[in-house]
């Protein structure tokens, strides 16, 4: 059998010439598949992570739907809230990914990955999209929960496909932000502290819970530079059909994800050293 291992890998060794976009796509599919395999083997996290969004929808959503204090026009508050909670759930998964990558560094996993013929930008993108795949599985749970609570969600396949893209872009940005912070602080404890410190401002500084028009001026400014705000706006437009600036949302999310992938790729070296 070892003969298989002895055969010089002449043909695939030539694949040094594989173009970067092809390498990136290949690594995205490889790392996403591994993520799905892990979810298949251990579904505990899917259920435990579903508790918090369920509480937001059931308690916060139901209560504020009855109170009618948040001006959401003709849309029931629960329907208004559901896309925001979906974005929040994806954010929580992605923003703490840095802890995982620091663990991977400590366990030698990162070093082993970096000795494969994978450019850092492809590794970071692959990791980020793999995290997005986990977020998408979580999003599916939230969508089912929202539908069970009577939220009228879109069934348009194109809108659902666009939603998938939005979650991937948003998760990629926040995952790479987390890798960037990990590359700067280098320890799990520090990253945990920073992650906790920035998560709530990102969440409350977006339109996840309330419309931008009722925010104070300074928060409106923050919302304009907060990628989560664009993610929520796009998800709301796609899932419940409220007017949204989809072109702007996609543009900002694509640009933000691309910039953050570049920064995280540059800082990955610090983790590897």
């Amino acid at each position, binding site marked *: 059998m*070892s003969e298989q*291992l002895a055969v010089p890998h002449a043909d695939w060794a030539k694949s*040094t010439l594989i173009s970067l976009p092809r390498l990136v796509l290949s690594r995205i599919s490889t790392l996403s598949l591994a993520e799905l395999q892990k979810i298949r083997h251990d579904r505990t996290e899917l259920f435990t992570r579903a508790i918090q969004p369920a509480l937001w929808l059931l308690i916060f959503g139901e209560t504020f739907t009855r109170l009618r204090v948040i001006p959401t026009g003709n849309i029931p508050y629960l329907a208004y809230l559901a896309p925001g909670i979906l974005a929040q759930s994806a954010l929580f998964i992605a923003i703490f990914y840095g802890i995982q990558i620091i663990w991977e560094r400590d366990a030698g996993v990162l070093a082993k990955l970096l000795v494969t013929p994978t450019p850092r930008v492809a590794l970071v993108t692959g990791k980020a999209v793999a995290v997005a795949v986990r977020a998408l599985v979580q999003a599916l749970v939230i969508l089912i929960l929202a539908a069970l609570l009577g939220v009228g969600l879109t069934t348009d396949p194109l809108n659902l496909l666009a939603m998938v893209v939005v979650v991937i872009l948003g998760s990629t940005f926040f995952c790479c932000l987390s890798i960037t912070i990990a590359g700067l602080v280098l320890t799990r404890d520090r990253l945990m502290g920073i992650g906790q410190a920035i998560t709530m401002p990102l969440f409350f500084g977006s339109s996840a819970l309330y419309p931008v028009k009722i925010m104070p001026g300074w928060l409106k400014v923050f919302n304009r530079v907060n990628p989560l705000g664009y993610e929520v706006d796009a998800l709301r437009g796609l899932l419940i059909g409220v007017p949204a600036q989809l072109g702007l949302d996609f543009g900002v999310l694509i640009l933000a994800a691309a910039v953050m992938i570049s920064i995280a790729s540059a800082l990955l070296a610090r983790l590897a050293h």
Partner: protein
Amino acid sequence: MSALLAVRGTGIRHRFGNTVAVDGVDLEVAAGTVFGLLGPNGAGKTTAIRMITTLLPAPAGTIEVFGVDVARYKLAGRRLIGYVPQQLSADALLTGRENVTLFARLFDVPRARRRRIVDAALESVGLADVADRIAGTYSGGMIRRLELAQALVNAPRLLVLDEPTIGLDPIGRASVWDRILDVRASTGMTVLVTTHYMDEADQYCDRIALMHHGRIRALGTPAELKAGLGPHATLDDVFRAATGDELGGRAGESGVGKSRVGESEVGERMRDVRATRRTARRLG
């Protein structure tokens, strides 16, 4: 000349801040041999390995792996290398087969042959029967063999092992070495290994380089090195002679190169200690 060499390092140097970890090392590893890199904690051997595997840049000197300048052509160099880090690094949430397949995909093994090659790698390390079990249920020795399979799936020409038997019991150590030697015998690949175990170095390595304070202090076959000290000398004696009696202990007090070490040596030694603790924890 370099066509016959698996590794050729010329004047390689690496510093962390103001301190030098690898200090102008010249290193030649002949193709098809098992080459051991020995030295006390903080000697610079892990830094040297990390430079050869492209994990660290080589700011001075050149490193060629089978004639490929790995600093310039990183991706081409990595396709020649299989790497097993010091820590037990298999993914505990994936099965043995999924762990190996992951690396087959990362090394772009063609889909048509992937399954066969993954099976062959698992069989070569004696894990074919438990390939579909979650790796988290494996013993430390089995995880180490799984990592070996991950490294082999690329059919590397150079297998780099950083302390491959650390934390394993004697049976696990022997089992890992048996697999390494089996694969070497059947494939002809070169093995570059760091170890603290003198008995392993004596028994399994064709040649040894003894590093201390970032430099190579002794180089040769185990027999040559021992003969240089006397008829009854052991490799432990050679180690003590080359490092100033610092076996597993305090480096940096012999006076040789003292000014160049210090922080980096302490830092690297602490990294070694932390890595060993992590490995011990994972082994339970």
